């Protein structure tokens, strides 16, 4: 968490005005309470220390609520980062007409030939057009299970490519050192010449996932062989991890993927880089309206944005759960603060006799609950931030499209800000009513 705080990026504040605005307001309130209130802070701190058992339990409750919320938000944040990192600026993805996803798209070979001649495709330093012809299939892979157990399988996303190095360039990916692309044939023989292996390159996420089947649960490495769809596949290369959906894919030669999985006569998608990045949306729109061939085209960024439905659903669910937990927490804080006040009724009377105003009493008790919330919130964020970098298998998807992905929990500064904001809100609302009650107590009644 300290690392996150040290890397705090002020430029992101305008993107989340409500979050940072509320947090700033509440932190300012804590400061105001500390410096404006006339009742010494040490009075409140000592009271918290005297009731250390109750204080500890209340702080622990805050830690649990905020820690849990941090973990949940880090998961969604990782999911958003995954879809956000997957689209390259200027890339346009083309599907067959009516299809919103690679899984349903069937582009005829002739349509793709026409697309390759589209005006406005960027070229690389060697003068080659930055375009990628791709076949995408989901393959069932049997997972080894103990004898007598129900059979298990996983879905593996396999992408077949005509020109893998060019595709990697289009998607902004590179091979890790020690890796190579698959050969022109896409196959190789074992050293004893007994078996033909299908060559593939894969992302680090799926390499880790497939490695789970082995006794040591180590990720697959270059040179290793695994079984999928009744064939042996050899890993010839690993892609660098960009935190994109491609980390969860296996790449192989298009002809091999097409023939084996019923896509020999069509492509799933055609991805191209617009020569003028700013013109990409217009180019996509032009392709969509083409009268020669019916297509569906969109910028790659908007395609991956459409896969954010799952994260939006989860975020909503988390907000609802956090709301209920926060309400529960507020009642807990109220209980503690009402008890603190009832135990210190005479103190309140003495403070008033000494000349402290009703407002001073209000600020003093409010500060006490805010201190509890701040300490609990910070510890909760600290605990929750331990999940930063955890990997988890999940799904991202939108209308009619889903992808199985391996994502990383991301404890962003917004996640921490959200956790702290929740904690301070609980402290404020939970402490306000008891503090108001303390404020309106009459001196005579309190000292009786």
């Amino acid at each position, binding site marked *: 968490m300290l690392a996150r705080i040290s890397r705090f990026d002020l430029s992101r504040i305008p993107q989340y005005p409500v979050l940072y605005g509320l947090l700033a307001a509440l932190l300012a309130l804590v400061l105001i309470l500390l410096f404006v209130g006339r009742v010494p802070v040490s009075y409140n701190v000592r009271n918290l220390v005297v009731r250390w058992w109750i204080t500890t339990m209340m702080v622990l409750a805050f830690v649990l*609520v905020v820690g849990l919320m941090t973990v949940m938000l880090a998961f969604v944040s990782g999911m958003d980062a995954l879809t956000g990192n997957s689209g390259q600026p200027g890339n346009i993805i083309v599907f067959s007409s009516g299809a919103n996803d690679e899984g349903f798209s069937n582009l005829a070979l002739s349509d793709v030939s026409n697309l390759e001649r589209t005006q406005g495709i960027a070229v690389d330093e060697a003068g080659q057009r930055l375009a990628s012809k791709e076949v995408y299939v989901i*393959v069932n892979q049997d997972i080894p299970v103990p004898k007598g157990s129900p059979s298990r399988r996983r879905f593996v996303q396999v992408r077949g490519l005509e020109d893998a190095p060019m595709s990697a360039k289009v998607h902004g990916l590179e091979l890790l050192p020690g890796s190579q692309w698959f050969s022109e044939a896409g196959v190789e023989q074992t050293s004893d010449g007994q078996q033909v292996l299908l060559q593939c390159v894969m992302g680090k996420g799926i390499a880790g996932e497939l490695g789970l089947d082995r006794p040591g649960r180590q990720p697959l490495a270059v040179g290793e062989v695994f079984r999928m769809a009744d064939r042996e596949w050899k890993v010839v290369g690993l892609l660098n991890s960009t935190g994109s959906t491609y980390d969860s894919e296996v790449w192989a030669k298009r002809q091999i993927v097409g023939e084996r*999985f*019923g896509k020999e006569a069509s492509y799933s998608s055609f991805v191209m880089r617009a020569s003028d990045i700013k013109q990409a949306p217009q180019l996509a729109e032009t392709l969509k309206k083409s009268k020669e061939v019916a297509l569906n085209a969109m910028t790659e960024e908007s395609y991956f944005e459409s896969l954010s439905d799952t994260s939006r659903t989860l975020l909503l669910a988390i907000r609802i759960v956090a709301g209920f937990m926060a309400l529960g927490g507020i009642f*807990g804080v109220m209980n503690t603060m009402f*008890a603190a006040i009832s135990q210190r009724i005479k103190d309140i009377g003495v403070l008033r006799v000494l000349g402290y105003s009703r407002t001073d009493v209000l600020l003093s008790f409010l500060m006490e609950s805010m201190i509890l919330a701040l300490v609990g919130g910070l510890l909760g964020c600290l605990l929750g931030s331990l999940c930063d970098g955890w990997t988890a298998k999940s799904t991202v998807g939108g209308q009619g499209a889903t992808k199985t992905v391996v994502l990383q929990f991301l404890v962003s500064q917004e996640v921490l800000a959200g956790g702290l904001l929740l904690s301070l809100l609980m402290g404020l609302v939970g402490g306000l009513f008891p503090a108001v009650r303390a404020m309106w107590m009459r001196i005579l009644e309190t000292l009786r």
Partner: protein
Amino acid sequence: MFQFFTLMLKNLRRNILRTSLTALCSMLLVLVVTGVWSVLDFIDRQTEEKANDFKVLVTEKNKAPSRLPRAYVSSLREGAARGPDDVKPEDYMTWAFYGGTLDPNKMTRENFLFLIACEPEKAPTMMDELDQLNAADTARLQDAIAKMKKQANAVIIGPEQLKLMNKKVGERFTVNGLIFKDLNLEFEIVDTFPDAAQRYGQTSLMNLDYLLQGIDEYEAKTKKKIANGADPIAFVMLKVKNKEDYEKLSAQIVNSPLYNSPAVRCESAGSAVSTFLESWQTIFWGMRWLLAPAILGTLSLVIAVAISISVRERRKEIAVMKVLGFTPGHVLTMVLGEALLIGLISGLLSAGGTYLLVNKVLGGIPFPIAWFQRFFIPTNALWWGVAIGAGTSVLGSFLPAWNARGVRVADVFSKVA
């Protein structure tokens, strides 16, 4: 005993505010745990292997989504049985999927329709929960199925889907095919699923024959093959008596020379559902082992705080009780009992309220996971609520109750003196 119970009630009534706040907190947190457990319970039930009435799915072995040629169907319905000793399925149902948009110029969610193409007469026996409808709903469903048998383009659409499409029973509409591109079919809505079949709120059924006929007619008319038209079947579902029959049937089908290209896979319905939910496992794991325990922990802490405060305020009173002859055990029981009362009552009220609110008012928890759209609170949740309330209150109050048990009369009165 009754007097002891009355004493506990009186103690709770003495500070109505504290009791109410603790109860409210319990109710809110029990509500969340009940919701979470309801989702997990439903998922667990979908993926568990049944001992009897085993449902088996025959799908394409190596690829998802599965696509099987229609030539496979007739022999698969017989379980590929060839000899007298071979296992034959008790029942079958063929599934294909037809999806498209009601308006090709406006591809929005409300215009998108996904239909299960099947033998409609198999729905009541092969689709989960449709065999548990009451007599009136069963009669209504049978009536709708009879209409589908008479009229090829008839469809049954779930009430939620119907509302989303802004259509009514009796209306006709055309779907512009996307899975089978350019295959546009016209339909007439003959009924909806009964409200009691809550999980089918967004499900739509059409005749498989109508889809296959549509493919044939399109190909004959245009003289070109339709995308996915050669292998339009998604899977064949078979029902066998028990696991033993499932294993025999599975071997029969997998080893049959009839299914080589593509090869097929035979798995129990529970196992197939597990596979589709595999990518949600982290979320389910988090809900089961992080979210629910953290909420239970929070609830225990809040109760512990409330009871600790209560004990702290009543030290003198506890000392007096001891002087009057109450044993430490009595004191421990009294404090635990007070917490238990709050926990039990708030747990029951919360679970009952959640059950009514979610099932009767909200029409389920809208949490789309895979193909499940909404989750309902099971009747079991009523005892979960009581158990959560009781468990967390006992757990949270044990330490304060133990402290109350240990209050020493001499200590208390020496300070008073």
